[in-house]
Structures are given as structure tokens and as C-alpha cells.
């Protein structure tokens, strides 16, 4: 392994742009995604969903459906093993398994339109659809509430009569929709605000938005007569799917093998289960494999968007631009069950800025909407929208350059965050300066155009990962990874193994293993795969190198210390020995004689994940007579530690920026007064299309590699969605001449802000 501390690390493979090992299957249509599996005797599963936003389920009459020829099984929540209580590590936050089960199949109440109430398995899609219509559900329709502020108001319809707000003492006596109140504070924010030279304040709202992955949720489940079952499903973590499904159906983990399909996008939305427990319950009832694929309408109605939010912020600052204090109240929708990322919003809100006095209050509020799921840096974009808008207001009042103001307040190494972590190996200032010195930041603007800047932060996590490296008999290597490859991670794993082993990248292949073929691993999410699983891959490769050196020493009959390893070849340093160097291929060919197959598996709990910081700048143009906004230019810079595969790192910056632009301009869940979703499809849930965006230029800031990772890697996948909301709004607000505080910045809102309607 060559010297890792050189300028570009002096690496052979790390930092290059090889073609990903799984690429050909994906460009030829051979790659198998969730809905592409077929088995003999396969049945089609369909789900009966509530048409009401809030209703008590009085009776489910399945008699007529059961009589329909071709119907093989029907399940309701009664088919789940409700004693499966307890906690389980989930992608977004540990959520009670009871709620996950009740979200897969409703128990006493249907809590949102589209909530699954029953499911059927039949011999054809047509029969399954007919059976769904024949299932008669009697509802007692209840009043509903959608908006987060309305859900908190006294007298609002209460979803869970056993929910008493946690984090409030004394504990309230009456049930409400506020699941939890979080408080994070330090110093005396109120006092500082009262005595401040300048106070900037605002109330900000954002709408619920969906991850928008193009692949609908899909799985195949097959129950074995001996109780051993198989699941093929597209998810961000096959181990998580196994754990949740086994817990809900009360079966031992070893009896359930989950095979990861290729995943057609997830962004956090596929870190829970919706279909797998239902499909396996159906299969258990009839002994036939069952495939369930969500329609796009079902994905919008019944899979987790991220929270809509309502946020109040007050900033205190001195004349010289130093932000001394801030108060924020964040109210996030959790959907039908508790568990919004509001606490993560509180923790990340001021993570870019060294503000001494902070008071952050967060409310996790349920309402009659689908349960939220993680969406790329969950909870952070909404909080950053408020913070970055307020900071821009401050810059304007001080007539200070918005980047200079941010540099003045930016965290440096050693600063303490509100949640107790100290900032280390942080290149936020360098990233701010990278944007300030970028040609985009000083390029002239046409009339009717404006430029907005914003910064963003995400923790990035480590956690449990397993990986194995096997050396083939001809000296090639296979990396067995445990994480679904959502954005090119097989390439990064193969590159780290190749660099460590000293093999050319084409001689290292990488597979993603099922739950019976590799040790446990946490999901693909939290920007952790290249960091944590990459660490396991590198350590496994290092164990292989140590073993290869031992084998060379055995062949040469010299001391292992005299065996040098460089670029995949062992050379003997013992001057007394005149021996030829031994390549991996040579050593592999004689592996039987030197101890047997050459392989190593490493399982670890990766510590030392380093946070990521992003700074985006964007130029927008507004048609003053229609309020329509177009993105004219966009540049994203990010502190990435060291880019393992720069092209896929750039892709994360570009993808996050595009999702952020959609979130800022046009994406929202639109509800009718009856609490029914009006835009459950890609026609009216308006995600950016190719002609909406310019090229998105990227700057990878690699001045501070993460010392806690063998190749300096930091998580890069989630930070990039945090800055765009503020960057777009800060640009637009200059044109409109008023602070825009409500997302999305639709043409109707912009024209109203321009005073034209």
C-alpha cells in the first residue's frame, strides 16, 4: 500500500475514475431490480388501502374475496404477531416495531389515506385487483388533521389516544398529537437576544416532499414448508428488512434469508419495510411465492415522505457580524406515527456556525399523513433553510458579503457543537473560500437575475459493517460487500481493495451479498458505506496482504519482516536470499501448499466518521409577469475528505443539488380539505426534469482527509441536499425584494410576493 499521506495521496487507484464493476448489467437492462424476479407458481399480491384520512376500522369482510376463484390468501393486521414489541435499529431513528407493523397493515384505525388495511394474493394481477374490490371494509370516519400547526392546536383531532407528550414535565394528562418535545440549549440565548445590537427573525414553512426514487417499492417473498423463507427485495439494507420482517412475523432471523435486488434509488426512503412482512404473511398462508409491487400512486400515498415543517428563528448579532445567539422552534410533521427527524434538525441547524448561546426547541407532531421516512440528511434541509435565510437577512442589514459573514461565523476545528461533538478535520472555511474564489461567484448577472449562497452540514455516521476479500486461484480478488450499491459503491469498495492489495482495478470484482453470505451490516444510508464498509473492506484486504507476506516468507524460508509488499508483489529483503519476487498470482497458485485458500472477513463497528460541509451558489431568473423561476447557473462545493471515485462523488453533489432545487421550487404534497392527496403522481408532483437544470459544476475540497479512515474518506451522499433550499431562496428573495419564507417558491407565491396578484 503506497504512502497514503502524499498530496493526492500518491495512490494508484484511489482518486481515479474506473468504470464501475456492475456497470454493464445496468446499461444493458440485465440488472435485476425489485420487480424483475420471477419464480414458478408466483402469485400477485395487492394491498387494500383506506380511502379516508382518519377512520376507525369497524369490520373487514373478506368472505366474498375469498370465494373468488384464483384468490389464494388474504391477510390483515391479525396475521402479524403483535407481541413482537421492542426496539429495532432503523435507518432514520430507532422506531418501535409496533408502529412499523401497524404501518404495514393497520390495526384499530386507518390513520392516513392509503394506509394499508388488508392484502390479497392471487394467481393473476386482474384477479388480485378484483379481489381487492370485493374486500368490504366498514369504517367509522373520524375528523382529520393534516397541517403540523393545526395538529398541535388544542382541540385538534387526536390520532393516538395513548400519546402523551414526552419531554414535558409534568407529563401532560391529556393525549395530543405532539409525540415529543426536544430541548437543546447552551448559554443564555434569551438574554443575549434582549441585549443584542441587531436581531433578525422570521417564520419559515416547508411542505412535505418525497424522495422521488423512480423505482416503486417491490419484493418477492417465499415461505418454505420447513419455515425457512426467502425474500428478494429492493431496499437500502437487506439486514434491516430481515430484522423487521422476522420481528413482525416472530420468526428466528436464521430462518429468513433476504436477497438484495439492485435498488432503483432510495435516498433514505427504503430504510424501512412496507411490503415484505405483508408478502411473507401471504406466502405463509398459502405456501406459494408472492410478489407485491407498489404503483406510483401507492408510493406517494403510503411510503414515507420527509416532514413538512414550521420554524421560528431569531438571530442576535453584533455590528461586526458576529452571531452571538439564536433561538429556534422547529415543528416537524411525523405523519401517522411518531418519529420525525426534528431532533436531527435541532442538532444540525447551527452545526456550521460557532454560536455561543443557543436555544433549540423541537416538536415531533403526528398528523393524518403517511409516516415520514428518512430523506437524505433527514431533518437538516428545513432547519438550514431557516438559518441560511436569516443569515442572509443579517448580511443584507450589515451590507456584508454573504460569504464573508459566513466565514466570520464558521466553525473551525475544536469548536463545540450543541450536541456535544467537537469539530475536527473540518474544511468548511476552505469550502466557503472555494466558492468565493470560483468564477461563478464574481460572474456578471443579467437584469432580472440574482445570486444566492448557502451552507449545509451533515453528521455522517459509521456503524456496523462486514466485508470479505477472497483471492481467486489466478490472483484476482473478489470483494464481498454487505451494502446495496445505491450510487456506485461497488466501484469504491473495489478501488479500496485494489489499492490495498496492489492489484489493478480490473482484477478486483465486487458483489453485494445476501444476509446468509456475509456478516451483519447496517443499511446503506447516513453516508456511511464508503466510510464504514470501506474500512471493513480495507482491513480485510490488509489481513490478506499480511497472510500473503507470511506465505512468501514460508516459501522463501525467511523472516516475515524481510518480506516487502508493494504493488501486489512480495520481494525478499534478506540479502542472503536470491529469490524472484512473488506476485499475488504466483502466491495464489501455491495457496494449497501455504495454508489453503486466501481469504479474510472483517466485521467492525466503524468509529471516527467525520462530518461533511457543503456550500452552494446559484443564480436564478424570475419572469416578473408570471412569477416563474428558472435556475440559470449552479455550483456546489463540498468538504469530502478524500474522493475515492471523484466522478461518483461529483454525482452525489449534483444529485443532492437537483433534489434541493425541486424541494425549493415546485415539490409539495397538495391535500384537499377532506385530507386526500391531490398529486399522487409524477405529473403533478413536479420533480426537476432535464430541461429545468443547467450543468451543475462541482468543487471537491480535499484539504482535510479524515484521519480515522485508511484513505481519508468522509461521507458525501447527504450534505449536498442541505444548502440548495437556502441558496435558491436567497437568490429569489433579492429579485422579489422581500424575504421568501414559504417553500415551495411556486409561480403563484412569487407573483403574489411581487405584488401582482
Amino acid at each position: 500500500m503506497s504512502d497514503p499521506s502524499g498530496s493526492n495521496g500518491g495512490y494508484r487507484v484511489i482518486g481515479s475514475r474506473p468504470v464501475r464493476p456492475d456497470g454493464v448489467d445496468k446499461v444493458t437492462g440485465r440488472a435485476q431490480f425489485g420487480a424483475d424476479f420471477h419464480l414458478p407458481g408466483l402469485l400477485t399480491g395487492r394491498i387494500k388501502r383506506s380511502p379516508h384520512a382518519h377512520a376507525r376500522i369497524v369490520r373487514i369482510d373478506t368472505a366474498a374475496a375469498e370465494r373468488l376463484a384464483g384468490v389464494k390468501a388474504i391477510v390483515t393486521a391479525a396475521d402479524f404477531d403483535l407481541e413482537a414489541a421492542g426496539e429495532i435499529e432503523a435507518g432514520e431513528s430507532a422506531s418501535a416495531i409496533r408502529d412499523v407493523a401497524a404501518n404495514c397493515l393497520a390495526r384499530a384505525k386507518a390513520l392516513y389515506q392509503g394506509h394499508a388495511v388488508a392484502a390479497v394474493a392471487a394467481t393473476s394481477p386482474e384477479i388480485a385487483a378484483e379481489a381487492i374490490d370485493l374486500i368490504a371494509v366498514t369504517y367509522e370516519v373520524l375528523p382529520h388533521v393534516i397541517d403540523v400547526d393545526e395538529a398541535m392546536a388544542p382541540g385538534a383531532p387526536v390520532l393516538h389516544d395513548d400519546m402523551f407528550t414526552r419531554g414535558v414535565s409534568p407529563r401532560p394528562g391529556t393525549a395530543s398529537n405532539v409525540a415529543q418535545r426536544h430541548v437543546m440549549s447552551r448559554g443564555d440565548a434569551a438574554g443575549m437576544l434582549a441585549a443584542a445590537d441587531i436581531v433578525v427573525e422570521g417564520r419559515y414553512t416547508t411542505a412535505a416532499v418525497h424522495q422521488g426514487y423512480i423505482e416503486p417499492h417491490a419484493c418477492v417473498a417465499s415461505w418454505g414448508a420447513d419455515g425457512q423463507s426467502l425474500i428478494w427485495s429492493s431496499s437500502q439494507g437487506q439486514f434491516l428488512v430481515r430484522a423487521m420482517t422476522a420481528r413482525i412475523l416472530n420468526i428466528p432471523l436464521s430462518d429468513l434469508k433476504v436477497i438484495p435486488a439492485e435498488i432503483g434509488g432510495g435516498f433514505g426512503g427504503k430504510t424501512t419495510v412496507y411490503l415484505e412482512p405483508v408478502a411473507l404473511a401471504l406466502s405463509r398462508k398459502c405456501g406459494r411465492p408472492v410478489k407485491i409491487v407498489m404503483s406510483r400512486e401507492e408510493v406517494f400515498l403510503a411510503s414515507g415522505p420527509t416532514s413538512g415543517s414550521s420554524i421560528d428563528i431569531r438571530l442576535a448579532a453584533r455590528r461586526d457580524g458576529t452571531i452571538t445567539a439564536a433561538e429556534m422552534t422547529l415543528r416537524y410533521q411525523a405523519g401517522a406515527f411518531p418519529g420525525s427527524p426534528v431532533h436531527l434538525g435541532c442538532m444540525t441547524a447551527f452545526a456550521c456556525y460557532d454560536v455561543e448561546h443557543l436555544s433549540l426547541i423541537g416538536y415531533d407532531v403526528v398528523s393524518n399523513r403517511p409516516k415520514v421516512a428518512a430523506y437524505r440528511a433527514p431533518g437538516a434541509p428545513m432547519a438550514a433553510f431557516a438559518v441560511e435565510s436569516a443569515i442572509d437577512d443579517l448580511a443584507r442589514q450589515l451590507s456584508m458579503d454573504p460569504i464573508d459573514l459566513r466565514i466570520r461565523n464558521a466553525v473551525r476545528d475544536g469548536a463545540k457543537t450543541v450536541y456535544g461533538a467537537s469539530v475536527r478535520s473540518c474544511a468548511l472555511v476552505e469550502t466557503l473560500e472555494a466558492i468565493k474564489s470560483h468564477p461563478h461567484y464574481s460572474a456578471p448577472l443579467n437584469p432580472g437575475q440574482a445570486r444566492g449562497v448557502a451552507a449545509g452540514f451533515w453528521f455522517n455516521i459509521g456503524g456496523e459493517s462486514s466485508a470479505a476479500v477472497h483471492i481467486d486461484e489466478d490472483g484476482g480478488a473478489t470483494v464481498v460487500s454487505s451494502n446495496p450499491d445505491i450510487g456506485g459503491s461497488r466501484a469504491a469498495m473495489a478501488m479500496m481493495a485494489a489499492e490495498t492489495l496492489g492489484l489493478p482495478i480490473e482484477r478486483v470484482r465486487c458483489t453485494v451479498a445476501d444476509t446468509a453470505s456475509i456478516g451483519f451490516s447496517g443499511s446503506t444510508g447516513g453516508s456511511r458505506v464508503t466510510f464504514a464498509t470501506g474500512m471493513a473492506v480495507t482491513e480485510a484486504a490488509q489481513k490478506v496482504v499480511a497472510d500473503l507476506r507470511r506465505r512468501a516468507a514460508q516459501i522463501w524460508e525467511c523472516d516475515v519482516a524481510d518480506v516487502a509488499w508493494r504493488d501486489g508483489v512480495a520481494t525478499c529483503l534478506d540479502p542472503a536470499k536470491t529469490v524472484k519476487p512473488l506476485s499475488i498470482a504466483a502466491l495464489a497458485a501455491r495457496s494449497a501448499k501455504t495454508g489453503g485458500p486466501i481469504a479474510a472477513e472483517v466485521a467492525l463497528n466503524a468509529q471516527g466518521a467525520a462530518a461533511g460541509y457543503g456550500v452552494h451558489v446559484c443564480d436564478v431568473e424570475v419572469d416578473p409577469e408570471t412569477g416563474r423561476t428558472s435556475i440559470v447557473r449552479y455550483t456546489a462545493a463540498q468538504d469530502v475528505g478524500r474522493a475515492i471515485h471523484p466522478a461518483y462523488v461529483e454525482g452525489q453533489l449534483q444529485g443532492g443539488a437537483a433534489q434541493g432545487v425541486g424541494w425549493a421550487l415546485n415539490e409539495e404534497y397538495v391535500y384537499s380539505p377532506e385530507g386526500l392527496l391531490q398529486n399522487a403522481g409524477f405529473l403533478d408532483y413536479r420533480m426537476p426534469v432535464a430541461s429545468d437544470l443547467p450543468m451543475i459544476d462541482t468543487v471537491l475540497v480535499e484539504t482535510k482527509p479524515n484521519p480515522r479512515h485508511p484513505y481519508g474518506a468522509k461521507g458525501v451522499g447527504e450534505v449536498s441536499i442541505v444548502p440548495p433550499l437556502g441558496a435558491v431562496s436567497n437568490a429569489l428573495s433579492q429579485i422579489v425584494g422581500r424575504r421568501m419564507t414559504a417553500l415551495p417558491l411556486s409561480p403563484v407565491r412569487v407573483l403574489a410576493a411581487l405584488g401582482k396578484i
Partner: protein
Amino acid sequence: MVRVLTISADVRELAGGRDVFEVEAETVAGLISRLEAQFPGLGHLIEEKMALAIDGEIFQDAPGERLRPECEVVLIPRIAGG
């Protein structure tokens, strides 16, 4: 003596509203068992649902971690991603 702080509403609730403690412990496991003894349920909550920031570094699961005397431990919600 280890200085323990928290930003978590759950911890505060189990600890009668307190968010600062002084605890005698050399390892994280020791700290958790002392807190469980003093505030029943708190130790289990930390094990299951909390992460720890020990002198500024975040540990999501680190029972074996040694604690420097006079170090600072912040009990925070587990962090997960999208």
C-alpha cells in the same frame, strides 16, 4: 469524576428534569450501570436509544470505551441517516 450532560428530553424525563450529573466511572459500561442504579430505566434508555459524545467525539455504541478522569460525556439521540 465524569461530568455528564444531556440534550435529550427522554433522559431529562427519566432523571427528574436534571440534565447535568457528576458520576464516578472509568468506562462507559460503568457509567451506564451507575446511571441505571440512580435513575431506573435511564441506563437501558442510553443503551438502546442514545449515543455518547465523549470529550467531543461521538460514539454510537462504545460500552468498552475507557473514560478519562474529569472527562465530559454528552448523552445525545442516536444519529442515523437517509
